[in-house]
């Protein structure tokens, strides 16, 4: 029987499984015993009790009497907000840095190289703290704020600008926007069909734009009293009212984007260099300009080698967003840590942090893998 390869393989697998299970059991029971010895109770009941702490800047509505689970969701929304913005910005900037590094213009390639080297060889925390300190080293006090435009000021307190307030129902502008988009899409679809049928492209899209512009004029006239400008005013120590961008949010956005764009730039450069010379030559032979060559030939081909490493950069952005608190922006990690401090449920809190980051990153990864499959070479 020992000679039977199949039985032997099953035995080895079973022994391995038993070993892992035994190790898990020992760890779990030891943890439970130690927790009991130290008098640390376990349970998730605290999530439904009021949080009793405030969060300075939130995307979703929040007050300190909301339950802990909602505070965690609000914190998560802050984290996802910065992660999404940084991923979008860093991807666009990274693309240009990658292309720029290959430029024959020494100034452009040199500048891109400096960016990449600074971003890749500086610890992110140092970069963020430096970036944050720049606010008060460079910008004036609120009392001497620089005026950029009427009602728009920048100072150590951040950027403060007029906000558009809408007193009528939000449904009207939403409906107008949706209609405009629908008109544009159907015009473009109809134009493409005519193009295929007759070889001639009618100016439907231009007509649609004119229609929308006329519609917008009528719309604005009909609702002329609903919209008003909320202009910030200086009161005692700072500007109040209007719309403002805080130094904390700006710093984490700029800092993390700068850092990530450096890495993405290198990935893009590698991807472009991986495109065979023959493709470039073929594009030149077809008479494509340099911009067209990049747009229609090189970038689509390079994407195949760019997307997989990009995946891990995006995951790094989500993980690095936990450094936001260093510059005073409260993210998911900070909110749950505060919860841990207030309720002493450290094990559960850390489990929540681990679980949520795992879920977010697995989802992000799945999304990019799906995209990767779409752009991969279709083998027939």
């Amino acid at each position, binding site marked *: 029987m020992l000679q039977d390869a199949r039985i032997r393989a099953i035995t080895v697998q079973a022994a391995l499984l038993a070993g892992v299970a035994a190790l898990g059991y020992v760890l779990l029971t030891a943890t439970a015993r130690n927790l009991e*010895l*130290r008098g*640390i109770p376990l349970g998730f009941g605290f999530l439904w009790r009021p949080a*009793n702490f*405030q969060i*300075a800047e939130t995307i979703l509505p929040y007050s300190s009497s909301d339950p802990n689970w909602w505070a965690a969701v609000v914190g998560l929304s802050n984290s996802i907000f910065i992660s999404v913005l940084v991923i979008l910005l860093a991807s666009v900037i990274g693309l240009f840095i990658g292309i720029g590094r290959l430029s024959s213009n020494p100034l452009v390639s040199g500048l891109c190289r400096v960016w990449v080297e600074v971003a890749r060889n500086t610890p992110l925390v140092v970069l963020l703290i430096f970036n944050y300190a720049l606010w008060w080293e460079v910008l004036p006090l609120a009392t001497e704020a620089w005026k950029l435009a009427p009602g728009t000021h920048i100072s150590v307190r951040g950027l403060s600008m007029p906000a558009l307030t809408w007193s009528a129902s939000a449904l009207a502008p939403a409906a107008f926007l949706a209609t405009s988009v629908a008109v544009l899409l159907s015009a473009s679809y109809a134009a493409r069909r005519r193009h295929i049928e007759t070889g001639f492209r009618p100016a439907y899209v231009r007509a649609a734009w004119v229609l929308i512009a006329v519609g917008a004029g009528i719309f604005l006239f009909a609702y002329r009293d609903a919209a008003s400008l909320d202009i910030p005013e200086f009161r005692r120590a700072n500007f109040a009212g209007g719309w403002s961008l805080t130094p*904390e949010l700006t710093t984490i956005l700029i800092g993390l984007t700068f850092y990530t764009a450096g890495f993405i730039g290198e990935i893009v450069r590698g991807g472009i260099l991986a495109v065979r010379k023959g493709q470039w030559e073929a594009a030149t032979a077809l008479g494509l300009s340099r911009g067209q060559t990049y747009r229609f030939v090189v970038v689509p081909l390079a994407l195949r080698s760019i997307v997989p490493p990009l995946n891990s950069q995006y995951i790094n952005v989500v993980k690095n967003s936990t450094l936001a*608190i260093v510059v*005073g922006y409260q993210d998911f990690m900070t909110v749950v840590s505060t919860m841990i401090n207030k309720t002493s449920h450290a094990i559960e809190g850390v489990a929540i942090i681990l679980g949520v980051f795992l879920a977010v990153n697995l989802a992000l990864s799945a999304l990019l893998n799906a995209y990767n499959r779409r752009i991969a070479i279709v083998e027939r």
Partner: protein
Amino acid sequence: MKRATQFAAAAAMVLIGAGSANAQSITDKVRQRGYVSCGASQGVPGLSRPDDKGVWTGFDVDSCRAVAAAFFGDSQKAQFVPLNAAQRIPAVQTGEVDVLARTTTWTYTRDVAVRFVAINLVDGDAIMLRKSLNVGAAADLDGLTICLQGGGSLVENALDLIEQQNQVKVERVYFDSTILARDAYFGGRCDGYMSDGFAIAGQRAAVAGNPDEHAIFQSGATTEPLALAIPRGDDRWFDIVRYAFNAMVWAEDRGITSKNVDEIAASATDGETRKALGVEPGIGEPLKLDDKWIYNVIKQVGNYGEVFARNLGEESPLKAERRLNALPRDGGILFPIPFK
């Protein structure tokens, strides 16, 4: 095959060993390690902060050094772990630090997670503001921006209370370290910087470019008992920490200082003092400590009044008043427990 068996045996021993090592008492663990691991702040002048030579000094630091002096007979056998507000309680729960001496308010929720031993300072919240803002009452705080350490400190609650009681709205910027909050305030990001009263006084005295530009506003919204904390589960360690601290208070009550302790030990006639200072044997026995342990605390660290004066009071840049942190005969609430 033999190697595999040996490996399995070694792995099993490591696992079992890890299990039993965790069951060891704190007292044994500290004795074996050779020093007391103290939880400290990230750098608050007067309370706990490394000086320019890297030596930790401050009132909280001395509270922990007293434990080292009592336990090892050497106040230098203490090492300090800087912790932020969110890290400190888990650090005690997991036994990473043996004593937490870091302006931690004694609260019910925390006390059922760790063990509070003794109140070493009574403090209240305070806000440092630029004098040009003329804040004289809590109502004047309306619309101002305050920088402070977040993460669930009691000071945050004090700010909530000020808002509710005075119908004002304050904007906050939270940081994970009180140091960055302070720097952001000095940089002009905020109108005020909020922390505990003694900590604020320390930052103004030691860090502000020109201390006269900054006023300190004490709302009186909260009275905070700041206390020493230890992990749960070791009554012997609890006794040692409690009485090491009490030795300092007791010494002040008896007029014993680090300077006159030798003289008093030689000339004392009353039984309690003679026994406490180790002239007569027996004081160390119940705690399994040296009979000179109280003497060591007083000689090496000083009495409560000396420690306060050196770090927070008249001999320090803070020049803080003792207020409630004095003996009852001086109008305070510090009670010495008799060494009888």
